[in-house]
């Protein structure tokens, strides 16, 4: 097993060496313009040397320095980048990508003893991966001269986000706060209430669970045109679509959650001669919380999807779905991407808030302990 003794990332390192060599050779050939700067090339050569040094040292500090040099080379390439680029640019483009990959392999396979070190690594590695993707996007689009109506560069998107803050905020307010959140609160609230009613009658429970499971798999977002017809173009129709989308998943999860307490626990409540209300409040609702939060988390994504797609069917002249569909029509793709970034951020922070809340409420559950 010779592969076990080799340093992780040696293949990427070797390929990077070839790419850097190709860069240097191509830079020797006379090109009218567009060669990457000498400083950037030197930084990459330095990173390669450190990579070779690391084969012996295996130290996180060498890797940190190597990462810094690769970053220096990468940003040096972006500075003063004009569209028709020489072949050496693409050789170096490859070199940076391979270098980042080698760094990831090495970092991921570092034998860290401390818990804190492992935690930091679990943050840094995905971060480097994301930054590498962003850099590849930026350099590829700008170096390849991709027209902005096909794919705008990340910096263009960031500039657009900074430039049209008020528009984006109005869209966010209309779609997320008015449409998604209102519908989410109404739909989930109604589902929990119905679940509490259903829970009292075994007949209803046996009837509604399969129907709810079936309905949860249906493309309910297709009700959007109907809702727009009934409730008009305003936020009410978006909230209605969201209510229809979140109701069944939430109902199914809550009903299942209310069954989650064990028979022996319910028997104990009976020996205390607890009323239905008491056993619900003190035993079964707390026991249902992991299921309820699971439903709330699933529905948080559905709510945003519902509100955005409903706007594709008709909306006033603001809203995230409207911005996306009209931006696509006018080939303003930077605006579309900016809206998508906002949607992604609001979606994951909504989910994150729910997950944090879940951690506080269901601290007793095995899945939350022992972390």
């Amino acid at each position, binding site marked *: 097993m010779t592969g076990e003794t080799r340093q992780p990332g040696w293949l990427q390192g070797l390929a990077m060496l070839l790419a850097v060599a190709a860069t240097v050779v191509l830079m020797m050939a006379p090109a009218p313009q567009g060669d990457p700067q000498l400083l950037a090339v030197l930084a990459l050569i330095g990173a390669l040397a450190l990579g070779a040094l690391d084969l012996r040292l295996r130290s996180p500090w060498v890797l940190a320095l190597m990462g810094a040099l690769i970053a220096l080379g990468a940003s040096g390439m972006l500075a003063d980048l004009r569209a028709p680029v020489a072949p050496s640019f693409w050789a170096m483009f490859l070199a940076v990508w391979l270098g980042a990959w080698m760094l990831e392999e090495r970092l991921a396979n570092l034998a860290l003893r401390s818990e804190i070190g492992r935690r930091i690594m679990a943050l840094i590695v995905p971060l480097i991966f994301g930054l590498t993707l962003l850099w590849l996007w930026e350099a590829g689009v700008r170096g390849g001269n991709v027209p902005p109506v096909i794919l705008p560069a990340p910096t263009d998107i960031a500039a657009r986000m900074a430039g049209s803050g008020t528009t984006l905020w109005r869209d966010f307010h209309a779609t997320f706060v008015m449409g998604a959140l209102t519908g989410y609160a109404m739909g989930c609230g109604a589902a929990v209430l119905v679940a509490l009613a259903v829970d009292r009658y075994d007949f209803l429970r046996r*009837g509604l669970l399969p*129907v709810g499971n079936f309905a949860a798999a249906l493309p309910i977002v297709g009700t959007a045109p109907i809702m727009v017809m009934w409730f008009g173009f305003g936020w009410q129709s978006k909230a209605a679509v969201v209510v229809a989308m979140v109701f069944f998943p939430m109902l199914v999860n809550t009903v299942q959650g209310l069954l989650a307490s064990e028979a022996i626990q319910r028997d104990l409540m009976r020996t205390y001669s607890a009323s239905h209300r008491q056993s619900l409040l003190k035993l079964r609702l707390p026991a249902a919380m992991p299921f309820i939060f699971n439903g709330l988390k699933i529905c948080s994504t559905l709510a945003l999807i519902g509100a955005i797609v409903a706007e594709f069917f008709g909306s006033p002249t603001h809203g995230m779905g409207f911005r996306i*569909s009209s931006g696509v029509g006018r080939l303003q793709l930077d605006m579309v991407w900016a809206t998508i970034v906002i949607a992604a951020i609001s979606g994951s922070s909504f989910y994150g808030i729910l997950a944090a809340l879940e951690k506080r409420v269901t601290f007793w559950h095995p899945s939350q302990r022992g972390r």
Partner: protein
Amino acid sequence: MRGALVPVLTVVAVIIAIWYAAVIPVNSQWVLDQAGRAGVEVSTAELVRETLSQDRPRLPAPHQVGAEMWNSTFVEEWRGPQGLMNTGTLSPRSLFWHAWVTLSATLVGFGIGTGLGILLAVGIVHNRAMDLSVMPWAIASQTIPIIAIAPMIIVVLNAVGVTGLIPKAIISAYLSFFPVVVGMVTGLRSPDAMQLDLMKTYNASRPEVFAKLRWPSSMPYLFASLKVGIAAALIGAIVGELPTGAVAGLGARLLSGSYYGQTIQIWAALFAAAIVAAGMVAIVGAIQRYTLRRMGMQQ
């Protein structure tokens, strides 16, 4: 399941009853307006009859939706001038045709997304760097409304000359990709340390451990994510038909119905989509039961 039949039928009957009951007040405004304009009184019986048989009701009655579905499928194919009986091909006016357009894009996309998702999951399980770098993003992507990029993908691909089935399939693939990745990573990791140790004592190589232990034990997880993925893929294909004003497909039926106020057509397309979704989930479920039974993993 047998004990559930009566309760389920009761619940469905109650839902249909509520639907009928809702039709009358929702549609009565239009009938009353018409009567007011004509200067006649309407009795309650007439009101009920009128509300249940409008051409463009605000809420069509269940039997109207059923009749529309029947007419735009079997009747259209049987008697229509462009139907299956007269031309030998599916009529472009029938729901069968529209459902097939959407379904084919869904299936192609679902196949691509599932395949790539399994490949990435295999990579994540076997490579620590991929695990650390890709997995957090795959999980985070579950929390964002990916469908928002659908219109952009369609229009951009249109601009570079790719039209028809492929753009929709790409959206479907994208939507079914992440559930499969997350589910399969969990599944491929589900063998416990003792089983992995046993494979080591057999001197099994990595491919052998994969083929004989990891892959078989990931099957329940695979099917669970396939069910999520196929539902997501269908939604992707339907939404993918919206931005270009597509002429064929269930999404196009929804869109044209909402442009021209053809509510019955919208509801029929909606139910067709529901039937397609339920059918696909049922097929995946049947394959799941068959596979797991053959593998000796009774649920």
